């Protein structure tokens, strides 16, 4: 579904991504794990069109989307839950959700119900301004917002960041559920353990390069990974 080939991205003089290649098959959950600063977020931002790559190619459903406008990429069916939530502080919770479906022309009520069902907390707060939500609430909102566009591929940048343990587990359940509904997931997580449990395929990104790949299970039992990322 998504194919990234030899992607290189620079921030000024710094080379943040140094030639990564990976694939996301349709219907799967793929996770990218790696240390801080490995270039995970940059990769996602580049796919979403927020950062222009220096070289490399990004194909989505056979369509070359390298360096295209974010709005074009969204219209193709890719959304992203950005790192740090980035919800709109002046918009109410409901408006935040609605704006997630900006490109859609059909009725949103059904999807709103679904999101509220996933996150009952949001329903309670649907008139509160996004900016005053607690960290965890904001994270729920960011995921909900991304779902509203009915994406084919949803990229999530550390969705469990700052969430209570109960919710973290919930989030991974939700990811699975979303996936069951036919949404392909590309996930970045620091909580590598949970991520690899959830994912079909995992890639390990180290200083801008993919160094290892395998199914979630394989990686979870790899000694090196255990030591470096699972804290065992």
């Amino acid at each position, binding site marked *: 579904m998504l194919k990234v080939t030899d992607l290189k991205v*620079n*921030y*000024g*003089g710094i080379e943040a991504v140094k030639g990564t290649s990976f694939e996301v098959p349709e219907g799967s959950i793929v996770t990218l794990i790696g240390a801080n600063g490995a270039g995970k977020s940059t990769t996602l931002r580049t796919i979403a069109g*927020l*950062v222009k790559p220096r070289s490399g190619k990004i194909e989505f459903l056979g369509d070359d989307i390298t360096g295209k406008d974010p709005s074009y990429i969204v219209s193709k069916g890719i959304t992203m839950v950005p790192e740090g939530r980035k919800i709109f502080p002046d918009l109410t919770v409901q408006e935040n959700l609605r704006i997630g479906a900006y490109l859609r022309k059909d009725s949103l009520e059904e999807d709103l119900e679904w999101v509220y069902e996933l996150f009952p907390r949001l329903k309670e707060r649907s008139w509160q301004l996004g900016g005053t939500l607690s960290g965890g609430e904001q994270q729920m909102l960011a995921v909900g917002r991304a779902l509203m566009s009915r994406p084919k591929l949803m990229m999530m940048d550390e969705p469990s960041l700052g969430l209570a343990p109960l919710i973290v587990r919930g989030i991974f359940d939700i990811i699975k559920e979303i996936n069951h509904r036919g949404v392909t997931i590309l996930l970045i997580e620091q909580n590598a353990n949970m991520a690899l449990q959830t994912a079909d395929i995992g890639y390990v990104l180290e200083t801008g390069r993919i160094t290892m790949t395998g199914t979630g299970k394989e990686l979870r039992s790899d000694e090196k990974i255990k030591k470096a990322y699972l804290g065992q």
Partner: protein
Amino acid sequence: MKQKRYLLYSLVLAALLLAALIAIDNSSLKSSMLSTILQKGAIYALVAVSLNLLNGFTGLFSLGQAGFMLLGAYTYAILTIPVEARSSVYQYFNGGLVQFSLPVVVGLIAAGLVAAFFAFLIGLPVLRLKSDYLAIATLGFAEIIRALIQWNTLGPITNGSNILRKFPTYSSLLFPFAVSAVCIGLVVLMIRSSYGRAFKSIREDEIAAEAMGINLAKHKMMAFCTSSFFAGVGGAMLAMFQQSVQAKYFTSAMTYEILLIVVIGGIGSVTGSIISSFLFVACSEWWLRFLDAQHYIGGVKVPLLRSGFRMVVFSIVIMVIVLFYRRGIMGTNEFSWGAIEKFIKAPFGRKAREEERKKVTTPHE
């Protein structure tokens, strides 16, 4: 080791500059466009640096600079006009109320102090305001000051709407340079001190700065008063340069002009402000003047050229600079010998240029 070498370079450069200035001062060039532009450039450099201290380093968006210059210019003029000249200057006010006159240096310092004092007064209520709210409040303050000075009732002191003149001016080109250099030097030292770092932290994030124990009110006030002090001194020197001073020209347009200089030079770069002051003054008042006159090339009239065209071209030049040097001439960088050495050492300076280009194309968020 390196430090010493750079210090040597700096001393040599300073000496060369001084020699050049002395040479101009003692030659027929003394009364020339070059000298005029250099004087005004030096004065504007001080004012621009003072605004940069506020806008660029402390993150306080102030549009009151013309008001503080006005205060400085008037304070200087009022205090230093010779007693015997007062009756002709204050022609409608029987020679005015002030019947003494102070030495030039005292007048200059008083100019700064009065500006700083008013900054303190206005700062108490308005420095709590954020961004544009602060901008409009300071802009408004400058307008209030101007209206007060023009008020006929204060005429015996300010001469109301009428021009002030006959105050002592300088005779050597070195004077504005010396005063500006000393003042800018002080600003640079301040920026590099712990207080300067505190100013920068306020620019970066007020909440975090406060959490680091920095008293926002106090530090903003320090920056504001200091900036106004130097704006006041700059205003006084502008009065000396013009040999006359009248409140109606210290409008927001003057503040915008200084803001333009700061931004074109690079917000947060002292060197940038200085360089762009000279360029700006030269460009607006010297180099483009030919555009105002009709010219003939081989008997054919050059189209478009007529009075007013210079200002059109000048506006376009400003736009072009702003559009192509988004972060100003210097960005937030300062002049450094290290950078220059690197530039020269790289083969034909290519590498340095390449790096520069990379910087420009950086995608920013």
